[in-house]
């Protein structure tokens, strides 16, 4: 079965095609097939499937991809609001 869909038009993934050297690594590491190769350059095929894990951005040798990688756990986000810090896994929760 296909993966369910989540909230749309929020993912922070950005691609600078000008910097792309066509190494293909981003399409390899993405767990949801967000990126594809189009005419030897990377292309965002399915932005709404992006989970902002950051795999593509960190593996891009020329920093053509940026994404706001975050902790997606509700408790961590709430904790972040209460403490005024960025959500992290050290909230004393289940991680």
């Amino acid at each position, binding site marked *: 079965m296909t993966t369910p869909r989540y909230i749309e038009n929020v993912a922070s993934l950005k691609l600078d095609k000008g910097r792309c050297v066509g190494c293909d690594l981003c399409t390899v590491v993405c*767990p949801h097939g967000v990126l594809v190769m189009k005419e030897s350059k990377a292309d965002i095929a399915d932005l709404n499937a992006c989970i902002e*894990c950051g795999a593509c951005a960190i593996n891009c040798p020329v920093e053509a991809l940026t994404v706001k990688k975050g902790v997606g756990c509700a408790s961590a986000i709430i904790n972040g609001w209460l403490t005024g810090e960025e959500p992290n896994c050290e909230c004393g*929760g*289940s991680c």
Partner: protein
Amino acid sequence: MSKNDCCPQPEPETSCCPTNKDGTECCPPVQSSEPSCAEVADDRPGYKLWPFVCDWTTASGQQIPKVATRLTATDIAGRWQMRWGFGRTRYSIAPGLYAIGTPSGDSPVLVTANYKMTFDILRRDMYGHDAWILVIDTKGINVWCAAGKGTFSTDEIVRQVERAKLQDLVKHRTLILPQLGAPGVAAHEVAKACGFKVLYGPVRSSDLPEFIDKGNKASPQMRRVTFGLVDRLVLTPVELVHMWKHILYSIVALFLVGGIGPEIFSLSAAWSRGGAAVAAGMMALLTGAVVTPLLLPWVPGRAFAKKGAITGLAIGLAASLIFADTLGWLNTLALIIATATISSWCAMHFTGSSTFTSPSGVEKEMRQAIPAQAAALLVGALCWLAAAF
């Protein structure tokens, strides 16, 4: 002291050497270079050997443990225990080199986390193959979470490669990483730092044998993460277990508030009204933390909070119909509202366990859902209190 006194053969009951149907052993012949007695860790004062260590192999001047590729009942019990969240942060093995089968200088090097559950699944899936396993220190956390946290990292991989003197162990210069380690690892940086090229293997270790046999080629399916029913099911117990403190406080609070009424405080009301509220609360909890995750793709709505509210509403309505005679309209209203709200809250927390939600999306849904949940909870609580008078 003869060698046999302190270098015992593996116990026949272990999973190390399963036998074929004709009675012959599947295990490879014993290495000609036997470990010396002093090097068998179980014999050293203060040391205890993991049961999954079958034997030892000597390579590039190191003693490397050969591990079993069949899981025992203890391993499986350990996995169940992890799924229920007990001792999750203390289920780890030592980082470093391990051997599967009889690896040589040409065998692949597979990198993994030091969470024992991860390690168990990997060695089980590599049954019948030869490989080196380089376990890195992820503080006992699984690959994907550790990658996100930055512990399954470029630096840690480089550190362990150097510590293991991998360049003396294998002739090739390739590391096979689980694809889900990618969020924490810059492949090009690893190569620069230690001379080993990173190859991203499949998402699931069960695809590793096929990946390796096909010359390290992955099919598109091998590179995709899904979130099927069983995947969702195994994640639900830990949600409940981790709420135990909230559950306890809520039970106490509900009994206390349940007693409030025309007689200021009545013990019998505390018991009957509080008890009913606790039961309703449990039902709502299960709806949000178990039922909604199980039915996830079929419940309307993208936001998990909305899905939880919908299932909560349905279950709350059903319960109010079943108990219609005993409730009265204020209690009924309270029941429906509270079930929907608590279910919504619990379902919202499942976002962190799911494999297809983005932090940006979770934040957006929480900004909308939490005020609504708070307001609804207040209304429900007031209805419930009013019903006592």
